[in-house]
């Protein structure tokens, strides 16, 4: 039994098998082989395994994301069976008497290079597919475990670091906990852990040898225990049961109003990042969705999602919520959320770069596709739209013009839609300071405290080194929130918070005093916030 400490970013207890998630960057060593035919047989065997893995992925993807999106895995297996690719591997093994890993790596690099040098942007991006299939075969040849081959049972994910796009692809049913070396308390992994209600640790000196071993993650004390003895397992099982009891107590708050002892009411809504979170929204009795991050539709795809695909998602959410408010935030990509097919330039300072509404107002075709899908879906429920990263009144007016164009188009096509409440995110100090002007243009404000804090304090939320300087209760941020609420109310519109801060129950009383109309939090925080509201005088 060994024990390692880290920094806790979400509490809870997880007991289960450890899975070391590795980015597939296997070091490939060039070796001389004597029996080249045996080496080719070894390659054939690995390729067969790779193709069967891809077929499994294909089947799983059909269920999860539908036939069209699943086809990429079928294409991958066809690429692996490609004559030129295989000829190159055979030739390298035979002529240079080298190991299969090296032959595959060289072939993969060459083909990837070929695609990378093509003129067409779409073809350029295919070099990633070549790397992907080659790495899959190399991983099998060298006995490493690949990312997608997450085992059948739920596991504790141990990794150096996790990119948002990696966590998106993980099977949520199989995640018990996150333990990483890098990352910060405000990273995407942390947000995911909170959404899913599973423990997470960072700053842990992780070891590859843990893979496959039993582990306990104690999100209360920030520890991970490897190969725990029976007594320890029992002790933590007890802790888990206590957790469950506590959660059941909270369940007793279901169906109760969000009202203080003196009668002040506030809406408590849920933030979601995928349609799979809808169940949690309903289970936790949220009175609406205060932030639906539409990015996942883009992140899960290998090309721009069509209007129809988006419409189906928004319609599903609107219908599931059955008339309750659903606030959908338009595309917020860029900065820490990257999508290959957007071909965004590498930026020195992505947080201050080409992202969110700036993309939408530049590439208006992308924006209009999303708006059309949103307006079409508005007919099937109570949809509101909000726009991220606003800094000026002009931006809002431009958005309103585009919205008007979209409405006219739909009208002329006789496509039905409902009135849609228009709001903006207040997540830049600029927007907060001119919120008096902005309030005249829209019907609501939703304060994104994560970015507002990052921009106000000039602290990168992904940088773990800065955690000691980061104060989420910084007076500057709280005063900006107050200013925004006051300016909203002066114009008779409502204001809420949809950032992490909304779930901080040590601030609930202060938020109520400020007069906030809404708090939108991860589904698992809806009932704790309700409890805090009901305990406030």
């Amino acid at each position, binding site marked *: 039994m060994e024990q390692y400490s880290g920094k806790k970013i979400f509490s809870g207890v997880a007991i289960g098998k450890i899975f070391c998630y590795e980015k597939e960057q296997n070091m490939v060593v060039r070796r001389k082989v004597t029996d080249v035919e045996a080496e080719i047989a070894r390659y054939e065997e690995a390729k067969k395994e790779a193709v069967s893995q891809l077929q499994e992925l294909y089947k799983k993807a059909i269920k999860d994301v539908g036939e069209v999106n699943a*086809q990429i895995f079928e*294409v991958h297996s066809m690429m692996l069976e*490609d004559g030129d690719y295989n000829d190159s591997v055979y030739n390298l093994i035979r002529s240079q008497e080298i190991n299969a890993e090296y032959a595959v790596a060289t072939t993969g690099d060459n083909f990837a290079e070929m695609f990378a040098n093509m*003129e*067409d942007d779409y073809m350029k991006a295919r070099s990633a597919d070549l790397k992907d299939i080659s790495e899959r075969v190399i991983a099998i040849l060298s006995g490493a475990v690949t990312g997608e081959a997450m085992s059948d049972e739920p596991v504790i994910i141990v990794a150096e670091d996790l990119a948002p796009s990696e966590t998106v692809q993980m099977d949520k049913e199989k995640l018990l906990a996150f333990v990483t070396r890098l990352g910060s308390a405000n990273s995407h992994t942390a947000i995911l852990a909170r959404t899913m209600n599973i423990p997470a640790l960072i700053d842990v000196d992780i070891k590859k040898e843990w893979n496959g071993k039993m582990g306990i993650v104690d999100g209360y004390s920030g520890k991970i225990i490897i190969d725990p003895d029976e007594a320890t397992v029992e002790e933590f099982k007890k802790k888990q049961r206590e957790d469950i009891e506590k959660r059941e107590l909270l369940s007793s708050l279901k169906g109760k109003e969000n009202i203080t002892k003196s009668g002040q009411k506030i809406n408590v809504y849920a933030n979601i990042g995928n349609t799979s979170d809808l169940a949690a929204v309903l289970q936790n009795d949220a009175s609406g969705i205060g932030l639906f991050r539409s990015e996942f539709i883009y992140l899960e795809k290998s090309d721009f999602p069509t209007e129809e695909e988006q419409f189906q998602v928004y319609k599903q959410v609107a219908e599931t919520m059955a008339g309750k408010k659903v606030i959908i935030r338009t595309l917020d990509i860029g900065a820490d959320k990257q999508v290959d097919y957007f071909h965004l330039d590498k930026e020195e300072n992505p947080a201050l770069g080409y992202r969110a509404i700036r993309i939408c107002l530049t590439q208006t075709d992308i924006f209009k596709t999303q708006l059309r899908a949103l307006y079409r879906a508005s007919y099937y429920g109570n949809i509101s739209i909000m726009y991220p990263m606003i800094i000026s009144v002009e931006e809002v007016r431009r958005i309103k013009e585009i919205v008007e164009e979209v409405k006219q188009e739909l009208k002329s096509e006789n496509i039905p839609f409902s009135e849609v409440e228009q709001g903006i995110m207040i997540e830049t100090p600029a927007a907060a300071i001119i919120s008096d002007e902005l309030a005249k243009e829209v019907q609501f404000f939703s304060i994104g405290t994560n970015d507002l804090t990052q921009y106000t304090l000039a602290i990168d939320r992904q940088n773990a080194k800065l955690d000691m300087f980061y104060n989420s209760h910084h007076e500057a941020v709280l005063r900006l929130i107050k200013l925004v609420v006051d300016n909203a109310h002066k114009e008779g519109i409502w204001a809420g918070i949809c950032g992490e801060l909304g779930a901080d129950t040590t601030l609930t009383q202060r938020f109520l005093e400020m007069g906030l109309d809404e708090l939108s939090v991860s589904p698992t925080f809806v009932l704790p916030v309700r409890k805090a509201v009901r305990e406030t005088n």
Partner: protein
Amino acid sequence: MVKIYSKKIKQNRKEVKIMKTFTYTIKDALGIHARPAGVLAKEAKPFASTITVAAAGKSADAKRIMAVMALGIKQGVQVTVTADGADETDAIAAMEKIFKENL
């Protein structure tokens, strides 16, 4: 008269013997991208004939997905597909169907 007639037969026979072909202009916005190239390779494989996709002076074996993708054929480009071999009639019909349905 006789001479011309026989020449014509000869020509016809030559065409039948050498290959079957059709031309098609790509309508798909992405051109011949990964998925249709894959479908093409999959459908071409069972045929004994040599099946070739050619455009802008380059050509590729239709059974080889990467070679076809590497042609980098974009929307609006006219491609010539040829099938040459014992089952070329069936092969070319199958290819034409795939192009019409996927590209």
